[in-house]
């Protein structure tokens, strides 16, 4: 294997790890941001259940964002500096949203009862700001930080798309974790968000090759075009299947309540593969290549060894935590 002998495998391994961290982040923090987006549509007592369903997890979920940005920082410091200075204001707004939603979550339970509705609104607003800013940043990154009205419109549209995708996974989470009226509402929300997500995927798939000649080239050159044509087909099947299942839920004994969530994870995975394929071999589209932008091998080795030792434990106790809070959400109590 050539890549093992010439030392390029380390940067590639880190790019892979980063993609994995981003996927896990989009799924895990995606569902709790999604719950935040949907919250104002629910009745006050239902909101308590929604919050309770994400309570034990949101903090660890958010840590995946720190890991993803940490990996970018560790392995590709130049790309990190370039991307974040280019996205200065969107980053500030995303962090603003992140702060608001993270704290309102805690304040709503501890502040005066008549302040609860206020903190619910802050939570929802913060969640939206965060989802929108992330979509905006993703779009801007994909089209190489292009300026101009159309570029900004595209960025904004993808911002809304990511909000729809998070809404979808949030609703799927609620279908799995709740029952009764709230679950029925969640099924309705999921259908609505699935329309949005489908539109989002079509928009990004059509617009990106038009904006970026390199992506056009990469996707439509033979012979890979036949292999990559599979990807949209798989996505279409996954979306169709999700619609089909959503229309038949809820079932007796709540069979299959986990299926929309699993299918949504599948859709997210396919989108990530599509994005990754478009970018490769660049870490910053058209500017910095993965192999050129990486840190020194001795530093990457130092962190990789630690990561390989720590990761099994991390995955282990994450599963442990999900097992403890497995099943339908009950009221959230400190004791």
């Amino acid at each position, binding site marked *: 294997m050539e890549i093992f002998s010439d030392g390029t495998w380390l940067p590639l391994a880190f790019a892979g790890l980063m993609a994995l961290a981003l996927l896990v982040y989009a799924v895990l923090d995606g569902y709790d941001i999604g719950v935040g987006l949907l919250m104002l549509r629910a009745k006050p007592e239902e909101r308590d259940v929604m919050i309770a369903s994400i309570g034990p997890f949101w903090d660890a979920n958010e840590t995946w964002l720190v890991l993803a940005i940490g990996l970018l920082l560790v392995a590709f410091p130049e790309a990190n500096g370039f991307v974040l200075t280019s996205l200065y204001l969107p980053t500030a707004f995303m962090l603003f949203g992140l702060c608001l939603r993270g704290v309102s979550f805690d304040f709503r339970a501890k*502040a005066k009862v008549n302040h609860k509705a206020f903190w619910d609104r802050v939570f929802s607003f913060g969640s939206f700001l965060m989802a929108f800013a992330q979509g905006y940043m993703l779009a801007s990154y994909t089209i190489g930080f292009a300026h101009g009205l159309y570029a900004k419109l595209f960025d904004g549209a993808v911002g809304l798309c990511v909000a729809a995708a998070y809404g979808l996974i949030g609703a799927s989470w609620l279908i799995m974790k709740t029952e009764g009226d709230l679950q029925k509402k969640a099924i309705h929300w999921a259908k609505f968000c699935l329309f949005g997500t489908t539109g989002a995927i079509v928009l990004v798939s059509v617009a990106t090759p038009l904006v970026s000649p390199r992506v056009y080239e990469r996707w439509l050159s033979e012979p890979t075009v036949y292999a990559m044509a599979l990807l949209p087909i798989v996505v279409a099947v996954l979306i169709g299947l999700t619609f089909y299942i959503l229309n038949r839920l809820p079932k007796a004994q709540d069979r299959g309540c986990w299926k929309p969530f699993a299918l949504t994870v599948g859709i997210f995975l396919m989108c990530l593969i599509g994005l990754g394929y478009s970018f490769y071999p660049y870490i910053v589209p058209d500017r910095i290549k993965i192999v050129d932008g990486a*840190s020194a091998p001795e530093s990457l080795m130092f962190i990789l060894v630690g990561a390989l030792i720590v990761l099994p434990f991390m995955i282990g106790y994450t599963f442990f935590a999900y097992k403890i809070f497995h099943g339908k959400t009950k009221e959230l109590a400190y004791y």
Partner: protein
Amino acid sequence: MAFCGINQLVTILSQQKSDVSREKGPFVMLNLDPVVLARIQFATNISFHIIFPATTIALGWILFFFKRRFRKTENPLWMDAYFFWTKVFALCFALGVVSGITMPFQFGTNWPGFMNTFGNIAGPLLGYEVLTAFFLEATFLGIMLFGFRRVSPFVHDLATFLVATGTTISSFWILSLDSWMQTPVGFEMIAGKAHAVDWIAILFNPSMPYRMAHMLMASGLTASFLVAGLSAYRYLRGEKGEAVMAALKTGVFLAAVLIPLQVLMGDAHGINTLKYQPQKVAAMEGLWKTQKGAPLVLFAWPDDKARENLYTVEIPKLSSLILTHDLDGEVKGLNEFEGRHPPVAPVFWSFRFMVGLGGLMLLTSWAAAYELIRKKSLSPLVARALVPMAFSGWAATILGWYVTEIGRQPWIVSGVMTTAEAAAEHPPELIGISLGLYLLLYAFLFTAFITTLFYMARKGAAQQA
């Protein structure tokens, strides 16, 4: 109010200009340097952030102590104390996490030169913090907060223990990196980038053990004064039940034991700084000229332009005695480091206010400890004094960090790269917008935090009555 203070600060700081080109805009009228703005923004972020980890690192261990006392004595008062302080912990933890996530993003948005040059060293240390600490504390926090009725008592104890361990491990990595920026060793510069040569030397760099010990004790003091102060507030409102008394005693006794140790630790840290960063100590002491038998300047108005102190009140030879343990020892003055030393006034004042707060901490904690041991109760005077002291740890910690971080200037990594060299070239308006957003956000969050803290304390009282 706050904005007036910032304007003055800006005027002071902007005396050191950088050569970053400026574009036209409203901030040019105010003569604002983008590097100064970026520094104010970073200082704002980190000052707000440090309050919360400084509280949670030690509060986690106090919670573990409550938990262990309960398991040993089976007296439910310990669980009452545990549950009340768990809520405070959860609030501080959430604020610490969200304000902390801002920090790594700032490296990219505002200080790309730092990561471009030192990424090979800073990167792995930050990466290890995420891997070994953040996931551990975040995951077990969920079990600690909401799992009490879902897991066995042992697992719940373990979760509390692991959350406290996680916060402490996290402080190790970040203090190691900060200390390395103060006293960089174990690396070589190849083609303008730092490369690690000896990881052990990097992790345990010369100032690291001292800074780590000083900070962990600062956290102990911060948490114990918060516990003592808020308990004294409840005590004054007539809530003198066993749980409140237990928390009050824990806070007071811990503070009373830690404060003299912290004074000794601070002295050791100062002597270590004298060895590796003498210019910082000279700024702390306000010593403009190298001299034997240097006096201890109690009060003065350091004039950075004239390079001398005005209105000086000093004790002869005491500075030499403290720093060199010899009445006629030589102490290096700022004249040896002209152009390479920090702005004197902010370092000089932060240091004096920190030491002053330390004195107040000693006075109140010992007075309260004396009363609690002798009379088994608190006099209203001492109880009232403890309430505002709930925040003394935050103030002293922030001031201490101002001493060490402003004291490192003009360097971002001592002797290798200046702070101005690391800054991104943003137009000042852009940084102005984000800085304005952060100031508004933090003012809002801090108000909500303090209000909620006292609301929770009052609600506790109402439930008991």
